[in-house]
């Protein structure tokens, strides 16, 4: 059993939903980013989504756009993200998902990306702008199947397309909570519950819900139905608001602990 299956199986036994945390690698700089991520992992995070910064993040709202820009300003390259993954892996057993736009992977070469990611200890990859229609050009160059390909399902996705996406997915399915970019407001908890139920009826993969979730009460409500809740912009907002604060890492740890409590049903 791989780390992703293992994690979701154990959580299910305990009656918990997974707390999935996204941060951009290298924000605000590589040293602090590594400290932040290690602290989050040690504070109860169940799955880590590590963002590879990109110059043109069209699926992201302003908070993650700025985090990506800060990281790139610090010179973060994909090879640095691989080094960071290796370092995080040395201190934790939780699944690590690399989150990226396609162009940095294309420039790195998809085959090399696979080898490096697997060697570094990553468990999966989510490529936000690579739909199933185009993804063979990436996975076709992968020399193995040790990396799960996490797929997105959106509120706009028609039922028959959900089937198509679910068939191509491995690891878990990522349900986008709303029609909008990351970090936008206006959660419709009833619609999320309904879409989660549909996905559960067509796939045996765990269902994680993300985009615009930050309040502990929303986390608790979504955790009641979904296998995981993804928090991204809310973590990045804390980083951005505490760039000069020496307590930043402590604050991130405490926030993870608080949110993790909300995922226990």
């Amino acid at each position: 059993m791989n780390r992703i299956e293992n994690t979701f199986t154990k959580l299910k036994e305990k009656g918990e939903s997974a707390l999935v945390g996204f941060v951009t690698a290298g924000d605000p700089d590589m040293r602090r980013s590594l400290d932040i991520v290690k602290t989050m992992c040690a504070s109860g995070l169940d799955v880590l989504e590590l963002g590879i910064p990109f110059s043109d993040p069209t699926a992201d709202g302003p908070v993650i756009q700025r985090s990506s820009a800060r990281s790139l300003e610090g010179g973060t390259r994909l090879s640095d993200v691989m080094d960071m993954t290796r370092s995080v892996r040395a201190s934790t057993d939780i699944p690590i998902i690399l989150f990226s736009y396609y162009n940095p992977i294309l420039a790195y070469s998809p085959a090399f990306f696979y080898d490096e990611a697997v060697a570094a200890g990553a468990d999966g990859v989510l490529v936000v702008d690579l739909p199933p229609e185009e993804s063979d050009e990436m996975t076709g160059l992968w020399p193995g199947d040790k990396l799960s390909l996490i797929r997105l399902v959106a509120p706009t996705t028609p039922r028959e397309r959900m089937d198509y996406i679910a068939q191509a997915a491995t690891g878990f399915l990522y349900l986008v909570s709303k029609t909008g970019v990351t970090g936008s407001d206006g959660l419709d908890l009833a619609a999320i519950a309904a879409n989660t139920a549909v996905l559960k009826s067509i796939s045996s993969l765990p269902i994680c819900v993300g985009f615009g979730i930050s309040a502990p009460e929303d986390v608790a409500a979504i955790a009641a139905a979904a296998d995981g809740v993804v928090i991204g912009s809310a973590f990045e907002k804390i980083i951005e608001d505490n760039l000069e604060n020496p307590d930043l890492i402590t604050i991130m740890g405490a926030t993870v602990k608080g949110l993790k409590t909300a995922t226990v049903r």
Partner: protein
Amino acid sequence: MNTLTTPMGEANLDGPNAFPDEMGHFGPYGGRYVGETLMPAIIDLEKAYASISPTPEFQEALQVLLHDYAGRPTPLFHARRLSAEAGGAAIILKREDLTHTGAHKINNTLGQGLLAHFTGKTKLIAETGAGQHGVATATTAALLGMECRIFMGKEDIRRQAPNVRRMELLGARVVPVSSGSGTLKDAMNEAMRFWVSAVQDTFYVIGSVAGPHPYPAMVRDFQKVIGIEARQQILDMQGSLPNALVACVGGGSNAMGLFYPFLEDDIQMIGVEAGGKGIATGKHAATITQGTVGVLHGSKSFVLQDSNGQIQEAHSISAGLDYPGVGPEHALLKETGRATYVTVTDDEALSAFKTLCLLEGIIPALESSHAVAYAMQEAARRSKDESIIVNLSGRGDKDLGILS
């Protein structure tokens, strides 16, 4: 099947209508690289375009608008004094600057606006660089009674102020975009982000032969009226086809519109990219001639990027060419060798701008001035019995602030 083996795969060369394939690929380029929230919308758009655009109702409505409203057909004009100045082949201008709103962009916005109308969408959004596509979209929205929101980089708002005023007069809301370099690339990023949140009732009118499938093919089809007219007009004028076509290339819509109906003809096609302050300075927008293969704004093509796959900022004096990507069909034409791509610097474009003003009484857009500049060089290398059609894609009133 006549195929070309490329580093990226096999490309089918069986005539212009062979591209794109049903997945939106132009050989190894094109495709659909967008987030899942938008995938159903662009699949619906592809189906709507395929089923509605060939209908007599749609075609008749579009033809009436192009003729009665946009002022088509536009003239083909033999620029004799310019030709004499260049010294060589006849330079013949396709006068897209004479369309309503002053650029070829209206051909496409009327087509997409009508499609939006036929599919029941009530709001239009668009990105704009020089403001010409923004003005054309705002014009179309006013004509069809739709709400309109235009995304424009703050640097472009500064350098193309007259067009901002025009869009506002036409009832559009101009949304300033300050991320990145504040130019066309960033405006397109923001338009895509907005579209994700408003995809149910909003039609995204992309202004170039870029973006995810079906946009590159659809925009080409709405712009090919330029080449269809020009081909007939030159036959009427001189009884033969021209020896070459020249058009500027930012995203590449005016060039694709002119080139496409001539693809099967034995004539040269030249796309002129913005060389900015000179290729050696790195401050340019020469995507095809200097870029590498990448994915930007939903399709695979040439892009200006660093070795880590981060998109670089382009530079051009002309806001409409200031874009680090290019339409995927141009990437294919470059790879197959069917078209060639060259560069013209800011200074060369400015010089051609002034020459055309003084010799022909035509004030061209800075974008189109790049094509004029190269056409003069090309004409000088050719004999007097040869001819070159230049797409004069827009008029230059909007640029007067930059020139003063």
